[in-house]
């Protein structure tokens, strides 16, 4: 097995989080309500950090925060090897007429995002939905979905590789690794 290749180190990820926090604020119109919604299970690690950074930079901001589980809206229920077990959906506001920024760690086939778009309308009709991802694997898309904010792009065309994100307290890393053959 080839050695895992480091794509982003802690400092690079930290910079992306700061950049995204500033971009969210820059894009926000004065009378606009914006909500950051992390996708379960792995997007929430990223979304929590972005939310915390926005609050650090702009403590007065009224940014909303939620976490969304997409299990019930996936298109592969009963088709995979694994049994899907849902995680918690934490959304204590109506999405009606507000701007939603969906946050995930890796954008790959786009199918999770499709499911998330379905799931989010259960909570109201948002004014606008945007997508923010740490990594964009842009040559592996199976649906017409692209991110509005991408931390870094990985141009590997191989499906035998996996992007792995390690979320640790002060040492976040993104790796490109070979998939283990089953």
């Amino acid at each position, binding site marked *: 097995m080839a050695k895992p290749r480091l794509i982003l180190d802690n400092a690079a990820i930290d910079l992306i989080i700061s950049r995204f926090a500033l971009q969210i604020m820059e894009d926000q119109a004065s009378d606009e309500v914006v909500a950051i919604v992390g996708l379960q299970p792995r997007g929430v690690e990223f979304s929590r950090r972005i939310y915390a950074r926005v609050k650090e930079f702009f403590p007065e901001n009224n940014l909303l925060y939620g976490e969304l589980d997409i299990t*019930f809206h996936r298109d592969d*229920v009963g088709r995979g090897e694994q049994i899907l077990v849902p995680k918690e*959906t934490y959304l204590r506001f109506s999405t009606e007429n507000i701007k939603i920024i969906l946050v995930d760690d890796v954008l790959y086939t786009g199918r999770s995002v499709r499911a998330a778009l379905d799931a989010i309308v259960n909570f109201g009709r948002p004014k606008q939905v945007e997508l923010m991802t740490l990594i964009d694997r842009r040559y592996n898309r199976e649906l017409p979905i692209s991110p509005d904010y991408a931390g870094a792009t990985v141009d590997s065309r191989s499906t035998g590789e996996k992007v792995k994100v390690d979320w640790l307290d002060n040492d976040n890393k993104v790796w490109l690794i070979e998939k283990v053959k089953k």
Partner: protein
Amino acid sequence: MANRKSKEIESTAMQHLLGIKDLDVSSIHTIFSTADQFKGVINSPTRKTPALRDVTIANVFFENSTRTRISFELAQKRLGADVVNFSSSSSSVSKGETLIDTINNILSMKVDMVVLRHPSPGACKFLARHVKSKIINAGDGTHEHPTQALLDAYSIREKFGDVGGKKIAIVGDILHSRVALSNIYCLQKLGAEVTLCGPRSLIPYQIEELGVKVSYNLQETLEWCDVANMLRIQHERQDVKYFPSLREYASLYGLTMDKLNALSKEITIMHPGPINRGVEVTSEVADSNQSIILQQVENGVAIRMAVLFLLAQSKLNKIIH
């Protein structure tokens, strides 16, 4: 982590839900945490998910049922599944068709799962062995009623945060009750203590072998327990008289406000329904703040959604006959 958890679930008897006896603790916890999320769905504005949009489920009921059947049907519809209902009274069963033939005929119309209620104990296990479908037991005679036990334990967990270490009394007609047996298995697996209470004639001989305590004194049992699950007197299964009169039963084992007020603490009252008001519990008790009977019904839909959702994902070709 997610991987290991999935494997654990895969290895358990999650191809069917025949009874609690064969269900392991990790599966029960998975069902509960999945039900938590479905409760969120039920209480969201749309109340539905499309999770099982490509699954067809047959509800096959050879016995009368209101709540279980509606609960299953609602759960299926909220999951987006297609549903067909079958009841024995209006079917070819009365013309002499066998159980296997009936089910196989239904399955040949491309049905993926069968929810079965049958008056014979073991009917679901028998069927699981002989037909290629996922079977969910919705009550088989006096044997088991797994989804009821799961929703009862789930309601206790919701009320107290945890089932482990809680003292649960199951009161009434234990002899004819599938709810009692499934509840005993489920509560014990989750670490609760169980005491059965009722007239001698309605408590099965040597039931203590299951690790439960038996008491014939209602007031003592109520004083001991955190939760009292009051079972229904099953007139339809009682071919001989097990007690002299309903009035006598109600006075000895029926729960009244006076009996509750005489206790040193407040206990929680459950009932699997349908209630014989004035027999197992008085109206006052059933409608009091201590009763979580209606929460049980609400949780029933979430639990059944969880069971259906998890079972629908397991592969049929992995069934071990």
